[in-house]
């Protein structure tokens, strides 16, 4: 798996994309626009490295070579990885929280099946061909604008999505663009795509060569804070599959967490005042084993943690029905257990950000599942 590939995806409302822009933008309009940012952490983020349990010394015993030192304080039971210092500032400002001992209901430990399920929101790999976020956007009557190649499953829904990702390529001359515009008249889908392509804002036509995470976060933040801009952004950070050299504070896992931290940090700075109406949330396929392996890494596990940041977070808290990490508490004797279906968190997040009833989203996006409504516990409603 490549460890340096990242991308982000944006979603926008149909109304605002269709060119019916408000004549006058006032601050109350901006106040009502809520943004949802999902950061997909591919490779299985270790919840016990990002948010270690410190109530006892179990981790020190079972991970003698990779236990994280110089932790950042959260509360008496949990600390934060030192590479998440930007996230820690949000915590201190009461706009960051953590859900721990959670996961999607998948115990197979296959990255491919797990990533498929974390994006589709289903329980049988590859059964669903759309993503939970895409279906949520459909329910809320929004339309997606993906800024990635290819379109992540997470954002696929019924709606015909747009997609964009920075490249060095450029459009031909205005003359040819005008000719093609009419040339595609009798091909509805071609015409629709081309019309959207040529009506892109300047910020999307002058693509930076630099596709690093900070640049992408800056572009995303700039677009999200526009009243007529997108409302959903999706990032991907690869490389959490640390079977070897996972390391402690400065290890491979820590480096990946640093990238996540950048994303929170850059988005906060770029969003400015809009940060108060934004929710940033992480998503991964599963956690990692409690005990370190012979390669100073960890194997595929089950329960993990979710990081949440932004002004829509209710308060700084670690929300968990903590199962414990003694042998008897572990899932199949090896993994942090999951005591909360992570889809409850995501369904609640969509409910808050899309101003859409939780039960409706539950029924339409995750049919046949009875999820917990956590909106009032986790978010400002």
């Amino acid at each position, binding site marked *: 798996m490549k460890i340096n590939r990242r991308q982000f995806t944006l979603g926008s409302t149909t109304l605002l994309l269709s060119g019916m822009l408000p004549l006058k933008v006032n601050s109350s309009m901006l106040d009502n626009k809520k943004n949802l940012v999902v950061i997909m952490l591919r490779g299985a983020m270790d919840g016990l490295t990002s948010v270690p349990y410190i109530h006892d010394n179990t981790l020190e015993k079972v991970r003698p*070579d990779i236990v994280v030192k110089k932790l950042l304080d959260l509360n008496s039971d949990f600390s934060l990885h030192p590479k998440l210092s930007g996230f820690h500032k949000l915590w201190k400002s009461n706009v960051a929280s953590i859900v721990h001992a959670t996961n999607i209901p998948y115990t197979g430990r*296959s990255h*491919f*099946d797990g990533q*498929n399920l974390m994006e589709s929101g289903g329980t049988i*790999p*590859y059964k669903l061909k759309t993503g939970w976020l895409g279906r949520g956007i459909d329910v809320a009557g929004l339309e997606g604008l*993906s800024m990635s*190649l*290819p*379109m992540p*499953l997470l954002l696929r829904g019924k709606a*015909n*999505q*747009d*997609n*964009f*990702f920075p*490249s*060095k*390529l*450029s*459009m*031909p*001359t205005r*003359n*040819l663009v005008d*000719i*093609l515009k009419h*040339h*595609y008249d*009798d*091909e509805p*889908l*071609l015409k*629709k*795509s*081309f019309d*959207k*392509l040529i009506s*892109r804002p300047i910020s999307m036509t002058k693509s930076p060569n630099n596709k690093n995470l900070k640049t992408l976060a800056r572009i995303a933040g700039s677009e999200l804070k526009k009243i007529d801009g997108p409302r959903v952004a999706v990032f991907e950070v690869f490389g959490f599959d640390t*079977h*070897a*050299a996972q*390391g402690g504070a400065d*290890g*491979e896992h820590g*480096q990946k967490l640093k990238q996540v931290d950048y994303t929170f940090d850059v988005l906060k700075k770029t969003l400015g005042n809009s940060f108060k109406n934004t929710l940033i949330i992480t998503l991964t396929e599963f956690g990692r084993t409690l005990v370190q392996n*012979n*390669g*100073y*890494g960890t194997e595929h596990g089950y329960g993990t943690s979710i990081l949440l940041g932004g002004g829509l977070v209710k308060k700084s808290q670690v929300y968990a029905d903590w199962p414990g990490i003694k042998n008897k508490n572990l899932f199949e004797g090896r993994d942090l257990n999951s005591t909360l279906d992570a889809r409850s968190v995501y369904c609640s997040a969509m409910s808050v950000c899309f101003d859409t009833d939780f039960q409706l989203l539950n029924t339409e996006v995750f049919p046949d599942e009875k999820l917990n409504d956590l909106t009032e516990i986790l978010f400002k409603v």
Partner: protein
Amino acid sequence: MNKSFFRKVGFGLGVDESIPSNPLEWSISQIEKLPKLNWSGPIYSLKEMMEFHGKYNYQDRRILRKKFKNSRKDYKRARKLLQYQTGHYYFEPLWLYIRHNEAVNGNSPVFHRFLHFWGNHFAIQKKNAMYSYDVGPYHREVIAPAMLKNIEDLVYEVTISWAMIHNLDNSKSIGPNSPKAFKYAERGKSANLNENHGRELLELHTVSPNAGYTQNDVIDMSKVMSGWMHRIPKMSSKIHKREENVPVHFIEAYHDSGPFNVLGKKYVESFGTKAARDMLRKVIKDLVKNPSCIEFISKKLCNHFITQDPSDEIVNSVISAWKKSKGDLKIIHSEVLKQAYKFSYLKKFQQPETWLLQFIKMSGLDYFPKDMTYDFETMIPRDKDRVRRICRNLGQLPFRPLQPNGWSDFEEDWLSPEFLFRRIGILNALKQKGKLIHLDKSYLDRIIELNFDNVSEIKTFLEMVNNNEESVALFSSKWMLKT
């Protein structure tokens, strides 16, 4: 004459070619025998690739991770060297070049279009670097020869191929009524089926969900398949050093003894290894006769080669050929070609790679590197990675589909602003680099006369375009994007 036929079932005609006097005969003759490869550069067999992939897996997992467990930087440096030694970055571009060379310069473009179709039908996901090491030879050595046989042979040979067994985790499956499961039970452990392969054999490779199979069918299909694996025999240290990269074999100890019930038919296994081993073939024989399988794959062929919404008349012709020939792939393919010729006026939005190959062939673009040799010591030179970069820019790396159902054949999955932009943008970039400078008026006229029926309409369209942009306009035109 329906000149779009040459793009519908092939990659169009190059300017040095002449229009075949009998297009149907031209196309059918190409699917009757395994074409000799036009490629004269380096090529590696599936067996050799298992050595490369096995070496990479073993060295990385067993040696480097332990040796450099204290230093991420040293581990990464050592792994990079190992990647060079095992051609980790080399083989995917090599396979792509061979694939593209056969499409553009080979004598059997129609055969290769069918190979692309079946390679996608039996897709290997982006998993464990299989796209780098294994998928190219899997297409050439497993799928291509079986395309001349019966559909039953093709499905069976793919199902027990190393690539598919690994792709869909069949080695992790243990039959609940198998000797191994009983041994597990004695030690208080449970042995489980892995349903991944069984499910996809039904859903994606044969009958499709239209057959109305149940979870019990999936479970029993998985039981039938249990025992087919690339498990490493512990007694052989040589094989162990290739990790899972060893040939697939049938191990009866992991095989469920049945009985099995798949799609309403009961299968009872008689005693002995041969009977256990043959059970999968028996079930596949029935699956490919199932009306849902015949309809599903016939329609998929029509979707790919003719139009994404084929009429019953078109699909039924292929179904009929399938039934009459009892699944003879040459007859089935031949009928697809007949229907594609008959209905060549129907339009189909071309996948990015197909469009790219048509553009390269028709334009005579200077596309291929002088050679594809490699030193196995350094990073692959940039020019030798060009095809992969272009495919990535277009959003379709053919050996890396993201899901087991492969790349879509439907317009709505490919027609988005960015995907359209990538095609136009690549043409524009090539023009700006002077790569299309040879496409003057007479060259373009020749391309149009060879490949399109609406010659005057296209020429009128190009007259509106500025002098140096006609080639960009032609290859991004609706007549080129939809064939």
